[in-house]
């Protein structure tokens, strides 16, 4: 991905427009989520966390899919363009952020509604696994080596996660199916979403998607800049290294001993 002409920031005209639209979306969401949409019959005001929690869960999964897709594109296209690798990394970082929001939001909601922080339901538990898996993915990205090594290693890991996460999700679903109380505790279980509430939820999803796009674009560009900086760092290191081959000045050495 080419960096911008300004060289100072990672913004372009397109991302500024995107950013403004996103901010508008956030304002819209706050308006509808906190004020205009009605409280729920059963849960009262605490249902409003849903407008934060559900979209961020959606984003977490979207981010995961994008990371996997970008990794596949890096590994299986002929060009092996590193831009895909950076997109994968950026999406994973933003995804981890949204996964964190999902988990905290979910715990808060659970606390308010059912007085428990953690409900062992399929989605929340799988999100927790996704969270830890991606922290591991990010750790592997930081192992060092050439950019190609990083891209290949983390790319393969992302694709393995595509196998692993559905398996974990399926396992957890089967598992929770054993427990009757799961049906009472299902996230949207006793919330009837229609009319304005549904509209607010959908706006939330749209807004969060825009936010995701904005964050990922900027982060990808930052990663590109970091990689370029690394290359420059390599150049400097190479020069230093080559300088080792020229012998030091003997006269200077003499002066040290006197």
């Amino acid at each position, binding site marked *: 991905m080419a960096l911008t002409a300004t060289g100072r920031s990672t913004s372009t005209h397109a991302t500024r427009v995107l950013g403004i639209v996103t901010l508008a979306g956030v304002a819209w969401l706050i308006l509808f989520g906190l004020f205009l949409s009605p409280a729920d019959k059963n849960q009262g005001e605490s249902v409003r966390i849903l407008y934060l929690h559900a979209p961020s869960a959606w984003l977490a999964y979207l981010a995961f899919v994008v990371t996997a897709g970008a990794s596949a594109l890096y590994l299986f296209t002929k060009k092996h363009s590193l831009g895909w690798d950076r997109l994968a990394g950026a999406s994973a970082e933003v995804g981890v952020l949204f996964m964190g929001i999902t988990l905290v939001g979910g715990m808060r909601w659970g606390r308010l509604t059912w007085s428990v922080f953690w409900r062992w339901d399929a989605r929340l538990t799988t999100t927790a696994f996704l969270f830890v898996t991606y922290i591991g993915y990010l750790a592997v990205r930081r192992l*060092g080596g050439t950019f*190609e090594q990083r891209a290949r290693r983390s790319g393969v890991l992302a694709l393995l996660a595509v196998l692993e996460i559905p398996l974990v999700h399926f396992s957890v679903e089967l598992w929770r199916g054993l427990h009757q109380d799961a049906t009472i505790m299902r996230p949207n279980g006793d919330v009837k979403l229609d009319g304005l509430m549904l509209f607010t939820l959908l706006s939330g999803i749209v807004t969060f998607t825009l936010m995701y796009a904005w964050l990922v674009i900027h982060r990808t560009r930052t990663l590109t800049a970091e990689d370029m900086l690394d290359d420059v760092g390599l150049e400097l*290191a*190479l020069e230093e290294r080559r300088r*080792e*081959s020229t012998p030091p000045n003997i006269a200077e050495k003499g002066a040290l001993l006197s």
Partner: protein
Amino acid sequence: MGTDAGPAEDRPSSTVVELDGAVAVIGRFPALAGVTLRVDRGDIVWLRGPNGAGKTTLLRLCAGLVPLTRGTGTVLGCDLRTERDRLRPMVGVLGHANGLYLDLTVAENVGFWGATVGASREEIASVLDRLGLAQRLAPLPVRRLSAGQQRRTAIACLIARRAELWLLDEPHAGLDAAGRDDIDSILRQAVASGATVMVASHEFDRAAPLATKALDVVGGIIRPPVTS
């Protein structure tokens, strides 16, 4: 100690290693900062230089164990950027460590490595024999051997694997005079059978008479070659 015929395709018969501006990075450190060299078949190349100069990395680069960050390189007809997998079976590396399984016996170690290339029992027996490992030492676990004996076992593994390019890092280290003589004669015989050898060594007295070519590795590059 015949060399494997290798893939049936035309390979430039004389050039075994060709590097141009090769840069190799270990972690964040540019161990090789632009190496240009050429090694022909049958050469015994002596790599000299201070510690930390990049000799070990250069050997590992030629073995296909380290990726090429910049520049180009071809070893035994394999492009170092894309064909490292194909290169590796044709190369034998003897590093600071010996690459042995300490709990297995000498015979088991050599047998294992020979088996990876389909060597017959007779071949393995003859390798053990020629390196003086056959009678007393063969059934001993490698852990019980002296440094010199372990080194000889490692070389036996190398021979059993029928490598075409031998990359040795300080092969004389820790050996007594007789052991060193052994190494020298083994290397000469390997070359006579068609292998090529690159040796990194601090042992002036040993390497100089052995080598056909000497290269100074300093600061990750090769200084203009000195006639040996």
